[in-house]
């Protein structure tokens, strides 16, 4: 929070909380989250039992609440029996959320703010890699402990991380370059199929792809190669769509890329050597949480570097006015091509990861539905922004999970939120915000304390 923010909001409880928590650096927040997951690991089960919850709330209590709401709706609409004792679950979930998450996070962030600020200030003077490693290590530790408490959390977290990478890779094209591309699930499909071809074909006995070509005890070490292979193949596929389509702009590119998506999908449907409509199953279980975390981290890092480099600035120039950019010596064709290939590469990697998390792929997974999903994440979170992609992917994935008990209503609530965001923030929640790691890790000034 900056000084002007504090001047405008001075009254009410939210403002008080805001004032209390101003001046907490990123390090402080991370420590707060770590404390919260440690609290949950120690007392989570006992607390849930005391509160009368059947089990530890798995997604911050939202799932518990939406389940009760679903029961109420069923009782009203379909006249099913409703157990009033279930109503207790709503306040119980809120109490749980406060005791396990909000209080420890606020307490640690507040009480540790001074120490965290001092540590952040010391680290600020060092080479960027050290504070970055500390922060990312803390973040991973927190996520690891959080996910270790339930397999459901683990799988949700894995798929959410992959969604972050996919959203960010589409944001390069739709946000930074300003074109509307619809072929992203196609690139993802290429990445998923090619990396599966690599891992299943070489190391696993499979009915479709035949016997393992190179059985090897340390085969999991080749997983990065498989992912990169998938990414490169996706880039090559992107080249095929880029060459003809960049003679067009706007709607025409959208239509060409949509056509490309259908071509890829029916290609895989008709390639009997790759399982046809039946797909490929039995990918080795190599996409563990640390692997995904590292790959997604690398993806965010390199995409952020790409979009903040001269290439990225050239892309923004092309988006805002292609003619002017051309006049200012930007090689627009090359800039667009590079962005497209980089976007497709990371989409291919995301596809490879997804194939090894779900451990099954078929062409139907990469259809128009996937496209709608990833476009929603990009536009919900915010164009032209790394933060936006993370916010969009995480919130849509988490909401999708947490509102699952509401069944069909979920498909009314999420699109409704998307519509509201489009009306009130047409470029998305956190659009056009630069992601600067050093800036994010800087110590904050506490209120009432001058630098």
């Amino acid at each position: 929070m900056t000084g002007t923010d504090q001047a405008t909001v001075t009254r009410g409880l939210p403002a008080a909380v805001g004032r209390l928590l101003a001046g907490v650096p990123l390090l402080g927040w991370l420590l707060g989250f770590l404390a919260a997951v440690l609290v949950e690991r120690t007392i989570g089960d006992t607390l849930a039992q005391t509160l009368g919850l059947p089990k530890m709330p798995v997604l911050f209590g939202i799932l518990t609440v939406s389940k009760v709401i679903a029961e109420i709706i069923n009782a009203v609409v379909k006249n099913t029996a409703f157990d009033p004792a279930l109503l207790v679950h709503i306040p119980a979930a809120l109490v749980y959320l406060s005791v396990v998450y909000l209080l420890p996070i606020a307490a640690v962030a507040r009480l540790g703010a001074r120490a965290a600020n001092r540590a952040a200030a010391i680290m600020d003077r060092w080479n960027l890699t050290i504070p970055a490693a500390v922060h990312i290590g803390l973040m991973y530790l927190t996520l690891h402990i959080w996910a270790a408490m339930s397999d459901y959390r683990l799988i949700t977290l894995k798929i959410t991380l992959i969604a972050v990478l996919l959203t960010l890779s589409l944001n390069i094209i739709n946000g930074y370059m300003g074109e509307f591309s619809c072929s992203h699930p196609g690139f993802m499909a290429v990445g998923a199929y090619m990396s599966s071809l690599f891992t299943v074909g070489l190391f696993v006995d499979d009915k479709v792809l035949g016997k393992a070509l190179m059985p090897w005890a340390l085969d999991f070490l080749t997983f990065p190669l498989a992912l990169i292979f998938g990414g490169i193949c996706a880039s090559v596929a992107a080249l095929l769509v880029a060459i003809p389509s960049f003679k067009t702009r706007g709607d025409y590119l959208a239509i060409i890329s949509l056509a490309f998506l259908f071509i890829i999908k029916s290609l895989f449907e008709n390639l009997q050597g790759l399982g046809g409509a039946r797909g490929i199953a039995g990918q080795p279980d190599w996409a563990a949480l640390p692997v995904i975390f590292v790959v997604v981290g690398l993806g965010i890092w390199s995409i952020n570097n790409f979009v903040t480099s001269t290439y990225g600035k050239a892309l923004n120039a092309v988006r805002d006015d292609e003619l002017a950019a051309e006049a200012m010596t930007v090689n627009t064709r090359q800039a667009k091509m590079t962005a497209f290939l980089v976007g497709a590469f990371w989409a291919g990697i995301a596809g490879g990861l997804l194939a090894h998390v779900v451990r099954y792929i078929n062409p139907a997974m990469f259809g128009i539905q996937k496209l709608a999903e990833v476009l929603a994440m990009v536009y919900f979170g915010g164009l032209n922004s790394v933060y936006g992609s993370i916010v969009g992917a995480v919130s849509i994935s988490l909401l999708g999970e947490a509102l699952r008990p509401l069944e069909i209503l979920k498909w009314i609530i999420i699109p409704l939120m998307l519509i509201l965001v489009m009306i009130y923030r047409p470029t998305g929640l956190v659009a056009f915000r630069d992601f600067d790691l050093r800036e994010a890790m800087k110590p904050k000034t506490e209120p009432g304390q001058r630098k």
Partner: protein
Amino acid sequence: MRHGRLLIAVLLCAGLVISPSVWAASDVINIGFPIPLTGDNPDVGASSKNAAEMYLKKFPTVKVGAKTYKLNFIYEDNEFKAESAVKALTKLITEEEVLAVVGPQASAQAVPAGEIANNNATPMISPWSTNPNTTLNRPYVFRGCFLDPFQGPVAANFVTEELGAKKAAVLYDIASDYPKGLAEFFKQAFEKIHGPGSVVAFESFTTGDKDFSAQMANIVASGADVLFTPQYYSEVPLIVRAAKENGFNKPIMGSDSWGSGDLMGLCGDDCKGFYFSTHYAAAGARGATKAFIDEYTAAFGKTPDDVAALTWDSLGIMIQAIQNTGGLSGDLKADRTKVKDALASIKDYPGITGKMTFTPEGDPIKCAVVVKINEQGQFAFHKSVCP
């Protein structure tokens, strides 16, 4: 603030008072249903849920050993998507702590979900999935329907014995997994009986095609005695009409995909008199099958499709397996394995879609039914074919 604190205190006390009633619920058996309640194919989910609700109404409790348990069914939406199926099943197994799972229905969800069930050592039975990968090398995963390598020969034998066919034609969708597989199994079986070349026309089209006259001209010219077309209910009327228009007056034989959806509403009189192989026959059913159909029709206002019937049987065999364990220990892990063992050793379970016994792979050995579409437009039992 003081009111807020008071409210929390009151709620906490209320929670403590009510919680014993929640904790007393340990004599409940949870069964999970990861089914597509939303997404591309909500009818499949609705049929499964209807069948399960009907079961629960009829048998709210189950006696295992000396103890009576209350049955509790948990439906989880898998959105007809593979990733979602994985998440939904993980949630059922780890969060809802189900003893056993019935579903998912379609192979695209059942194949990845089967991996999760097997890794978590939870017995799962997919009522409707025909992909061999669903149960392959997965001791905890079973299925409720017969496989295409069995249905192909059933159709081939039927047209040979009942319709006296010596030459057959096949028309199928090359881009869709199920018709293509079945068409090939039929061809194999028919040529085994009548010698190579007895399938005189093997014509294909692509999903979404509406004009079949070129293929029909070839089929009529080939002089085939029968046409086999393993297509979905939405495509069958177009094919049947194309056949009539092009002067093909011989019988047409279909597969179980004919039986779902609104075939008669779309096809009308054109489809009457033809045959297809399927899991069970609605018209002219007897005994338990008839009771099931009558009850289902009364409750939901429509004839149960094969998904509903197979879900009913899969659920029934799962409950039978739970009963056969002779008593549950309360330790979920051990109980799940016990149920899996009991399920594998069930012999001749009398389901409404036929007697079921599982192979070691988890696929059932069960009979197929050939139905004739009669003059009233009903699917009438014609013949039962057993392996």
